[in-house]
């Protein structure tokens, strides 16, 4: 053989973070190579796929989703159904309606829903907040207490509320916390340092670096992913070695490609297929850039992305 490719594993390594408990627990991160670069070194843990269960799922009008969750009335019903979906590694509970500028559902109601889900399923749980920093701080504090012992990941602490969220979720209740910043490697590093300053173990932190749907300023997400991964692996920057979770479901279902009706865009064809395609392409791009886990909404997206991962690992 005249040509032998140079392999390039790094000395830096992504933290391996365990979510959930028992034999259904999963580990994200742990690798010392760029995503899917199996030719450099074996990938310790394949990327994981979560299924979104939203508290406004009854407003989902895409036929495939309506059919899949037919007969489900509660978040727990839906979570049970999703848990059985082949390729579902974890369940992500999305508390959209807690937003004070929206339905403003009470923390108690949300906690009760989460508790019911936790009692009904065995797979790991990730909780997605409503993005309002005060409400999320309150929600995460009470929910992390109610779900104590379940090793749940709460997405996410932000610059404005990391003290409350970090202290309650991780220090008081031993759960895992997300650190969310918006497409800015310097802010991402800073937030991780601040969490460390609170005594939050870096191995309890997962990053949300601020992704987007492809076509929607995705170049910022792509370069932030590239830069964070290179800093973590190449420069061994311990403050950026947290695994990354991309909330694809939050990025793709609101853009025009996924929402425009077939009457409004006759050339574009089936709306559901377009939305799945947006979700699949965005998830694949996120995983290629450095996401260690993605959260998806549509069962068909889950199947496609699991197949994609299997093809590459």
């Amino acid at each position, binding site marked *: *053989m*005249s*040509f*032998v*490719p*140079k392999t*390039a594993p790094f000395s830096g390594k992504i933290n391996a973070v365990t979510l959930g408990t028992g034999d259904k627990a999963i580990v994200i991160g742990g690798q010392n190579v760029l995503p*899917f*670069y*199996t*030719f450099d070194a074996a990938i310790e843990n394949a990327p994981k796929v979560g299924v979104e269960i939203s508290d406004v799922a009854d407003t989902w009008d895409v036929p495939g989703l309506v059919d899949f969750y037919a007969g489900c009335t509660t978040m727990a019903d839906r979570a049970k159904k999703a848990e059985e979906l082949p390729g579902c590694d974890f369940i992500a509970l999305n508390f959209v309606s807690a937003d004070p*500028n929206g339905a403003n559902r009470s923390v108690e109601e949300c906690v009760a829903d989460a508790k019911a889900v936790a009692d009904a399923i065995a797979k790991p749980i990730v909780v997605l907040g409503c993005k309002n920093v005060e409400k999320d701080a309150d929600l995460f504090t009470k929910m992390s207490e109610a779900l104590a012992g379940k090793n749940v990941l709460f997405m996410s602490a932000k610059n404005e509320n990391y003290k409350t969220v970090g202290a309650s979720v991780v220090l008081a209740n031993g759960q895992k916390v997300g650190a969310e910043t918006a497409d*800015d490697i*310097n802010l991402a590093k800073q937030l991780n340092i601040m969490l460390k300053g609170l005594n939050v173990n870096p191995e309890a932190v997962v990053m949300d670096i601020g992704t987007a*749907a*492809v*076509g*929607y*300023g*995705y*170049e*910022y997400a*792509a*370069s932030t992913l*590239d*830069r964070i991964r*290179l800093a973590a692996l190449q420069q061994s920057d311990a403050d950026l070695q947290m695994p990354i979770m991309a909330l694809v479901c939050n990025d793709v279902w*609101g*853009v025009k*490609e996924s929402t425009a009706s077939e009457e409004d865009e006759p*050339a*574009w*064809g*089936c709306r559901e*297929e*377009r939305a*799945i*395609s*947006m979700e*699949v*392409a*965005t*998830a*694949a*791009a996120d*995983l*290629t*850039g450095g996401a260690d886990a993605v959260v998806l909404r549509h069962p*068909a*997206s889950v*199947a*496609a*992305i699991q*197949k*994609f991962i299997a*093809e*590459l*690992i």
Partner: protein
Amino acid sequence: MALKGLDIFKLSPKKNCKECGSPTCMAFCMKVAQGAVELSKCPYFSEEALATLNASTAPLMKTISVGEHKLGGETVLFRHEKTLVNKNLFAVSVCTCMEAATVDAKLAEAKKVDYERIGERMYVEMIHVANNQADPAVYAELVKKAAATGRALVLECWDVECAKAALAVCGKDVILDGATPANWEAMSEVATAAGVALGVWAENISDLYDTVKNLEAKGNTNLVLDVTGATAKETLANAVNVRRTALKQEDRTFGYPSIVNLAKVAKGDDRLQTALAAMFVEKYASIVVMSNMSYAQALPLYGLRQNIFTDPQKPMKVEAKIYPLNGADENSPCALTVDFALTYFLVSGELERSGQPVNLIITDASGMSVLTAWAAGKLSSSTIKKTFDELDIANKIKNRTLIIPGKVAVMKGEIQEKLPEWNVVVGPLEAVQLPKYMKDKEYEAAVAAAEAERAAKAGAVKEEVKELSFDELLATRVPKIEIVDMGVSYKGHNPESKTFVTIGERIHCIAPAIKKAMAERDPAPILERAAAQIKAGATYLDVNIGPAEKDGPELMMWAVKLLQENFNNVPLALDTANMKAIEAGIKVYNRTNGKPIVNSADAGSRIGYIDLAAANDAICIALCSADGIAKDNAEREMHCDNMLERGLSLGMTSDDLWFDPLFLVVKGMQDKQMEVLEAIKMFSDKGLKSTGGLSNNSNGAPKHVRPIMDATLVAMCMMQGLTSAIVNPNDLRLMETIKSCDIFKNHVLYSDSYLDM
């Protein structure tokens, strides 16, 4: 990529004959590496050494042309390192193994995908025609059909006779993807004879490497590498290894564009194909071959490609036009923002979330964000008026509510004046507040108020507006200057001095107190800031009056007189997007302590500022960028040379052009800082003066960190030859650093109390 002196030295004759003028071969090679001397000055380099040296200065990855398309030519593995150059193309595959009807359907479907997205045509650029052991005539027939689409072709065909037959029936915008370790020699002859690029494939990457070597040895370097493996996993390994070998190991054997054929590895699963295509857009395919391309696949993939291949240093712009949202019609209110793509997506997304019909009007602002565009004069009542005229908005929309971004509330009056038919109201500061603002119709009260105001104005008698000369303005519109004792006097400045020139940046209309003082012609806040800066040792004071579209000339004359008469003719930099105002300011300017500075020209739309400076015998700051940040120092140097030439041809001396490399913010552009420093060295090596908004480097950093960053950077810059900077003189650490550097540079004679001088 640049050669190091030692690499050249290894190949040098090492005879130290001094004929080149250098004392040793080593010294000569070092100079060659810096570009200070031509290699040809030495007659003793061997042919072989010269060939090696020439080859090592060639690009690491070739650019291959196929018709109008360009492939490859990449210089980096990740877009943030510089930029990706040539976007990947998409091809749809047809094969001799398919029924004619299937082929027709695929070609028809591929042609259907054809739309525009943010100024770019999105379509299937190529048709891939696979030959599955068919007769030459059968293959040629299929190729003919594919060629009839008018798209460029990839001919995947390992049979020499079939390839010849195919090439006879199609044009020249073709890649003959046919060379293998078995047939490369014959296939290369076919491709060369037809004048088309040759695709090379092998079962493993090592054979691929050897085959390319063989082809290159025969003189064929018009190549594309088909890196498709048996599986997706193997294909990714090939694509990455090929690109990495070329760019990182600098082995040009793999320095060619690549083809990835997903029709082979996606196994007919459309969704898997979409996922893999997304990956290969990011990971190094120059051509992604798909088994089909529907809108569902195209929309995300072309959107991704457009994002990934955006130049990180050029803002992405959306078209200036009316975007009706949530079923808006001519009776829906209008909201306005700039054409920066990210702003557009953010604002349109939030407006869509509100569910309220609204016409989003995008106005041309050179792809800058709202505040940046406003400060640069790219978003002004004039530019908005221009958009309204060009788009004929008054006739297209009947509703007269116009919501402007909260961040430019200050423009409300000017816009109202330029668009008297409209009710201009100030929207929220942040896009996230828009859904509530729109849902609760928070703009209605302001609209009513604007309506009432317009009605009142309509009743009033219209004032006759006549343009006044500077002298008339001075006599009638410039308030008398009061002399106030501020307890400091300007110590004077010798323009011949070599000491570092600080230009105090604190009189800037972006500061609310100054904005108000300027509007009301209230001297106190301005004098206060001037006194503090002068006391701190500023050489020049910058006077930024903002876009000042309305009353620029009289405002600038007032400011110039106010400052100079109060502070012993302190020299000033005149800073505004209104050129007339600069001219007016210079008219009343006193040159005792140095010429006025025009702040600033650039190599793009503000090139005319050089003419303005030349006509008024002023110094001109010349920003080395056109629109957006220069992509590298070659571009900075080009702008520098062009502006220098323009200034000199207009009779300026080179000392009166102060070149600005454009200081970049560390948070975000950390990897570009050394480039800026090298640009300063480049100016200095040309014997030119330089300046710039140095404190931009620490923008967004915590308050206690900024002085440290600014002081460190100014020291590094002064080492590189920076002669001036626009700074905050009240920053003691920075000013002390500058004074110390002037000591080390031997510009000021040392004494124990040099810091107090």
